[in-house]
Each structure stands twice: as C-alpha cells, then as structure tokens.
C-alpha cells in the first residue's frame, strides 16, 4: 500500500432511484478523496444527496455508476465476503441513535456485537465492554440496560463506542448530533475529536450545520442537488465561500 494512497476515494459516483420517467438522480457524479487520518465533511440542505452518498460509502447501497475505492482497491458491492472485510475497517454512526438499537437487545450485547460477529465469541475479552464504555464517558452500570433506559446522548455515546470496538480506520458520521441538545452535541463532538486524535482515525461527517461540521473536519464539500458545488477548508470556509447557496450555511 502506497503512503500517498487515499484511504477513501469516490470517482464520478452517480445514484439513480426508480426507472424510466419516474427516475430520480440522487447523485449526479461526485468525486472526492480522504487521506489517511484526515476528516472531511459534506454540508448541504436536506435532500441534496449527502446521506445517499454516505450509504454508498458505507457499502449499504451500490452506486448506479462510478467507483468507490478503499486504500486504492475498488469496493465490490456484489460480494458479501468483500463487504464483510470492508466493514471490519469502516464503520458508520447513524443519525438517530434510538433507531440504531433493537429495543430488545441489552447495551452489553449491542456493544460487543461487531467483535463477536466478525471475530467470534472468543475474541470478546473480559472487561472489554466496560473499557469501551469508559472511553466514551459511561460507566459499567449501563451494560445490562435496555436502550429505552438511556438518554439520546448516552445512546449516541454507546453507538460511537460500538464503532470503536472494531478499531476501524474510518468512521462515517451521518448527522450524529442533530437529534441531541446543544450541550450533548458539544460533548459528543469533543469526544469524537479526541478519539480521532488518539487513534489517528479518519472521519467523514455529514451535516447541515457548518459550525458543527467545522469542529471535526479539515475540508468541507458543499453539496447541492446531487453534486459538489464547492470544496473549502473548514477553518476559512466562511471567508472563502463563493456560491450564494454556500453562504446560507454561515449565519
């Protein structure tokens, strides 16, 4: 593997839903790359295609055309073993924390599910679940609980802890703080930034709040109607934004 090879690349990715006259193009050809250890963000209004793009990057949907490469190798969406290997190294945090949990599964089972399914029961070490929870600021008393016994912020921390359990190289974040209050939002973002620094992990962060996206990313792509219309540095995006559409994200 070449040092300079991006960890994740999308090349002219398109996605159409439906057929014939009722066909809808959610993505009209997007290209970008993420370097190892780098974090990028996608900002756009609802329906611009950012969640679709994230689902394609996560391997949950195949693109209609174009290519997604991980460490330079094209992702084979039709191969379950290939996707399984990919998911050991790429994890996703979904928008609504409560929908990410089966209501009948305890936090402990949920936390270790990835390790157990990818590497077998023997790979689940004693005390690992407690250690993962501690990483995200929760104690072991949460382990036997069911999801409805936790708040939204606590659930999102558990989701992040589960993603970390597999020690992925990149985590895809689909508006992970949009369902949370402002204080919890800040705590989660600081936690992610800290974990990113500690583990040298990359993030792809989707959102529509520029202030939130900026906190975690170095580069930002502005999306509109299935296309990237601008690429900006997070620190200076407010100053450098050229499009009128982009400026509406900076109040």
């Amino acid at each position, binding site marked *: 593997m070449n040092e300079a090879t991006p960890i994740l690349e999308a090349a002219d990715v398109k996605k159409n839903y439906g057929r014939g006259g009722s066909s809808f193009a959610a993505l009209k050809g997007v290209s970008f790359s993420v370097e190892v250890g780098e974090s990028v963000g996608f900002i756009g209004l609802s329906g611009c295609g950012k969640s679709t793009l994230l689902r394609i990057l*996560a*391997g*949950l949907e195949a693109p209609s055309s174009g290519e997604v490469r991980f460490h330079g190798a094209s992702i084979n969406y039709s191969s379950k073993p290939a996707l*399984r290997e990919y*998911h*050991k190294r790429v*994890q*996703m945090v*979904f*928008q*609504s924390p409560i*929908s*990410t*949990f*089966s*209501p*009948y*599964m*305890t936090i402990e089972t949920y936390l270790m*599910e*990835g390790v157990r*399914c*990818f590497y077998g029961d023997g790979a689940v070490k004693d005390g690992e679940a407690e250690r993962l929870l501690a990483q995200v600021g929760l104690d072991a008393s949460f382990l*036997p609980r*069911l*999801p*409805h016994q936790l708040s939204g912020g606590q659930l999102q921390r558990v989701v992040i802890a*589960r993603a970390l359990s597999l020690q992925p190289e990149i985590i895809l974040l689909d508006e992970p703080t949009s369902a949370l209050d402002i204080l919890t939002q800040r705590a989660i973002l600081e936690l992610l930034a800290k974990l990113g620094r500690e583990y040298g992990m990359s993030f792809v962060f989707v959102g529509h709040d520029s202030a939130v996206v900026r906190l975690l990313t170095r580069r930002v792509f502005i999306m509109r109607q299935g296309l990237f219309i601008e690429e900006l540095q997070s620190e200076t995006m407010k100053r450098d934004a050229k499009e009128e559409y982009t400026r509406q994200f900076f109040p």
Partner: protein
Amino acid sequence: MNIWMKKFMGDRLFLILLLLNVVLVSFFLLSPGIAPNDPIEIHPDLALLEYSDDYPLGTDQLGRCYLSRLMYGGKATLVMTFGIVVFITAAGTAAGIMAALAGGWAEHFFMRFLDTVLAIPSMVLILVMVSIFGNGLVTTTFAIVSVSWITYARTAHSLVLGFRDSGFIQQARMGGVGFLRLLFRYVLPNVFPQVIVVATQDFGDKLLLLSTLSLLGLGAQPPTPEWGYMLSEAKPFMQQAPWLLFYPGFLIFLHVIMFNLLGDRLQEVLDPKEA
C-alpha cells in the same frame, strides 16, 4: 438471570395467570387417568340424570357420564386448538418474515397470493375443504390451519417491514451479522412479542371456531366427545337438561377468557418499556 427472565419472574399477575392456564389445561390433558367413567359407555336407563355419586355432573341423553365426556372432550378440544395455534403461528410467522426479508418479486408475488386467498371468506373455504375431504376433527383442523396461517404471515410481514430499513438492521449488516443471527437476534425478538400475543388471543377464537364447526356437525363425529359437538348434541334437551349446555359452554368461555387474559398480560411483560 437475564433481563427477560427477571421480567417474567417478577410479574406476579403474569405468573398467576400462567399457572391457572397450565393447571386448567393439564386437568383436561390428564383426563384418561382421572376421569371417573368411560366417556362413551351408554346406559339408556340412566339418561339425563342431574347428579349422582357415580356421575358427579350427571349423564347425557344416552346415559354417558357427563364429567368424563367433558374431560375427554376437553382433551380433544384443547389438543386440537393448541396444535392449530402453534402450527399457524410458526408457519405464518416464518413465511411472513421470509417474504419481508427476501423483498423484490418473491415478496410481491407472495403477498398478492395472500391477498387473493384472503379475498375468499374463510368459512367458505373451510366448508369447501370439509365437503371434499369429509367431516371429522382432523379434516376440520386441517381446514382451519389452511386458512388461518395467512393472518400470521401478514402480521409478521408488516412487522418486519416496519423495521427492515431501520438503523439497527443496517448497523447489523455493517457489523458482520450473518443471516441466521439477524433472524434470531434481530428480527424474531422484534416480531415474536406481538405475534405471541396475537396467538394467545387467537387461541380463544380458534377454540370457538373448532367448537362452532363441531356444533354444525362438521367437526368431531359420534361418539367422540368434544365441547362444540357436546353443545350440538345438547340442543334438543335445552329445556329438560340445561346443564348439558351449561357445562361445555362454560368451559369454552373459561378457556377463552383465561387465554385472552394471559395474552393481554404477556403483551405488557414483553414490552421492553414496561418497568
């Protein structure tokens, strides 16, 4: 003890209802060993006795021990009803889940097939089957099973559709969860509580349906004792011996109400949000 076992063991009302149901059903299942008399032995000279030491609940129009007939009849009724409910629950739920997980054309064709069968009144289908294969408890049971599993298939299908694209299923796919684990750890726990509640409540409906068919002369045939058939036999003696109608009617009512109460309580126990 896991969280669900704790919930079951901690719910006193559920345990009481479960115990009452088990005792009630066991009493009838053990009937061959404890019934005081032969349920089909005829004593014309003892017909329509109200009470005696030898016949604690009297005799029917042919002088047969009514308590023994109720006990043997209970066994036949409950075994058949239980068999019907278990089979239609398992088969219907499995079919509905598989259709929802398969998606695409397989799901589409399967659901349209169910719609087509559902468009025909179930009683008409049952009567057609019984007229083809003949009267009797086995034929009636087969006919009820043939039309009743569809309700469970539709219920399970719609339940799975409700969470098929939800975050936890997608995350399971990203978490290396295989098909069998997805089925048993993610899908079934989210379908089973609702389906099992429908099944316990349906137990009463199926018991009534089986009894109704016997009452119409399509189910159990003489001299087999069965509660619905016993009601049918007792009709001409309503004025003379009203207890002949009362006892089987009351037992049907008792079982229907007991299983409904158990189903209602089970629904609350299986709700993860209930403390």
